[in-house]
């Protein structure tokens, strides 16, 4: 890991206020202070709507901050936007490509937008096509690509000009595990082989844990925790997280209260329903929710009881007994050591997926 301590990004007092159609002011980001060091992978973790994208949109110059400023490599994004943007490569969450153009044409076009041209552009395009392993499909139109291949081109566009900072906005949303693995490996390569700084946003705790040198947790437009994974989990002490899948979409609220009161060492009990697709949740979101539950792999329509307890394994039999008393069928059980999910739960009282 590169531990260079010169800041790649310095955000101070970043605030963004939107005015809705009915004149209501919504404070999407509430004065964020953030420092990202050169050569690190920094993840911004938070649930959907927490303000991750708005925050990064201000850092990348897409949105004008209502207050505050951000510097990329020492250049102010508000006062020297062209210099700051030249150091930044962006990989947006959606496939932001021209699907009627070929992979090569897309790379060449965006390369020109970054000021590349001539042989240099051609050489960089070849390099990136090698990097994303799509040289054999370079002359095919992007609309003929699979979702994973489009993702790779989407990433490649952000790397063309060899940026010092790469911002990746939830790049694994809605793709299969194989391509997800490939993208996560790519992030490591960017840091380890090219010395790039990576700013990675995600709502998936596992990704943040696996990738990050440091993590910032954002909720309701504020950074509520910042540090290495070890530093953050220390905040929740020794609590284990028990994830108990049940076959019912709803449980008796008395059950949750009973667990909280009668089982020793339990500090928090939470229940969540795995939404069926189409009930306010897309397939991708449903897949992501399943992924955040990791090995439990709950089916849609089931429920998930999350319990925080200092000695989880000892508390588990008593909890299962209570669940049985409430005539609820257990589908799966998992005990987790303290992690970022627990940190978020500890800090906000809500699960990250809420």
């Amino acid at each position, binding site marked *: 890991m590169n531990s260079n301590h010169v800041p790649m990004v310095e955000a101070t007092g970043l605030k963004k206020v*939107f005015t809705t159609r009915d004149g209501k002011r919504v404070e999407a980001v509430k004065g964020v202070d953030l420092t990202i060091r050169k050569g690190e992978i920094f993840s911004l973790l938070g649930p959907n709507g927490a303000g991750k994208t708005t925050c990064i*949109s201000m850092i*990348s*110059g*897409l*949105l*004008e901050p209502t207050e505050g400023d951000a510097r990329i490599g020492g250049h102010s994004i508000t006062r020297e*936007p*062209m*210099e700051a*943007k*030249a150091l*930044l490569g*962006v990989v*947006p969450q*959606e*496939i*932001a*490509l*021209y699907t*009627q*153009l070929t992979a090569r*044409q897309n790379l060449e*076009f*965006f390369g*020109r*937008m*970054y*000021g590349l*041209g001539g042989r240099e552009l051609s050489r960089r395009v070849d390099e990136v096509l090698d990097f994303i392993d799509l040289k054999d499909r370079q002359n095919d139109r992007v609309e003929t690509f699979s979702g994973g291949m489009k993702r790779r081109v989407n990433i490649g*566009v952000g790397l063309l000009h060899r940026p010092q900072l790469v911002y990746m906005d939830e790049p694994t949303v809605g793709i299969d595990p194989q391509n997800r693995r490939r993208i996560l490996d790519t992030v490591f390569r960017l840091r380890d082989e090219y010395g790039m700084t990576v700013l990675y946003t995600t709502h998936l705790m596992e990704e943040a844990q696996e990738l990050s040198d440091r993590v910032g947790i954002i909720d309701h437009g504020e950074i509520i925790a910042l540090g290495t994974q070890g530093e953050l989990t220390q905040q929740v002490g020794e609590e284990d997280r028990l994830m108990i899948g049940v076959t019912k979409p709803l449980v008796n609220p008395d059950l949750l209260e009973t667990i909280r009161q009668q089982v020793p060492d339990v500090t928090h009990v939470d229940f969540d329903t795995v939404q069926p697709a189409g009930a306010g949740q897309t397939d991708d979101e449903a897949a992501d929710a399943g992924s955040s539950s990791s090995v439990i792999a709950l089916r849609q329509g089931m429920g998930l009881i999350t319990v925080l307890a200092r000695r989880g394994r000892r508390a588990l039999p008593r909890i299962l007994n209570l669940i049985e008393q409430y005539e609820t069928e257990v589908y799966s059980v998992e005990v987790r050591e303290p992690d970022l999910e627990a940190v978020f739960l500890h800090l906000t009282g809500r699960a990250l997926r809420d």
Partner: protein
Amino acid sequence: MWSKLGAIVWKDLYTTFRDRNLLLMMFAAPLAISVIVGSVFGGQSTGGFSIEAIPVAVVNQDEGTDLFGQPSNFGADFVAVVTGGEAGSNAGAEPVPAATTPCPLLDDTVGDGSAQFSGSLTDLFQVTLLEDSEAARTGVDDGTYTAAIIIPADFSAQMSPDIDVPGIAQSEADAAATQIEVYANAGRTISGSIVRSVVAGYVNTLLTGNITIGATISSLIDANPAVAMLAGNNAEANAVLGCGFIGGLGTVSLGGQSIANPQAEEDEPNLFALILVTTGAAQAVLFALFAAQGGIISVVEERRAGTLPRLLTTPTPRTVLIGGKFTATLVMVILQMSILLLALLVIASVNAGEIVWLWGTNPLALVGIVLATSLAVCGMGILIAGIARTPEQVGTLGTIINMALGVAGGAFGFAPPIPVAYFSLIYWGVDGLNKLGQGNVDIALNIAALLGQAALFFIVGIFLFNRRVEA
């Protein structure tokens, strides 16, 4: 910066020309409509008219004027042109004396004091001469006539050039107020347009011809006081000078093609070309408007697809991004208009068996009106892109605005009240092309109006667009 601008233009043009539906909309549709309309109403062979004579009521209230001591009545001359020197066949209609200018220099008109014409406009129009303008309008309203041509009492006076000749009293009327009223039936758009074109051509010929001749005589008088003396005191000389002015003997021209030359019987009116000009100009501008929106809509589509936000994170100024989009759309619109106008010219020429300069013979003027129109429609496209949130809104809003502009601008064959029409860029574009088609290159006002609207739309559109990006 230029390489970035060029890249955006290339990308937009490349993607556009890969979109068959858009190409069909841009090029094939307006051409097809123009040709179909032309074929249906104009016939496919030279001189072979497939429509019946257009019933027209003519009310000549022209009281005539005195030109160098010679009585002139341009209104009567016009009647002679459209009737062949006599009234139409409708019973009860009172023939009005035709040209009243006995001109010793023009043998054809010397004789019984009336000019006798045999031009083909007599085939085109079935003329009924009336004395009451209200009766004529009522006739149009009830469908008896397609149009009423009402010539005002001071028409000749106002058409006469203002030359300061000692001893000769000239009209003091305001030339700018001169207008032959064409009251047309809105339901007969093509026929109405033909009548308007013929009247406009006649008036233009009078104006340009008489102004030129007037200027020549003025110069002559200025240079040689003896001429003034002669003009002021010699009746015969006055008659000669007076006959120099064009009455009903002028050519009513359209794009260099004579459509009614009373002295050349062999020339048939090129009705097909006339209709191609009328419909083609309207279609060219209207579809340019749609094409511009088709191009600019990509800004909104890119905003939704995420490519525009991505471009905004590159070190590329917004002005270059918008400039590139605007330039690409402008190129497409210019290309579309040029191809359409050229195609119509080719069709008219093939139909006539000779080159028909449908859009006049002044390429600079044509380039000017095409460029100004293209800028205005692209400006409107930017404005709509700034107002709309989604591509669907662009489509809906754009169609409503285009149709409203089309109606206000007379693109559908009927002329709206002039103050309303002035607000429509379509009016200025179509009017400019029609003027060129009639051989009139006085389109400076059209170009100025179009450029003014282009600038206004562009500035407001960019302002709104920037607000959208920030939202």
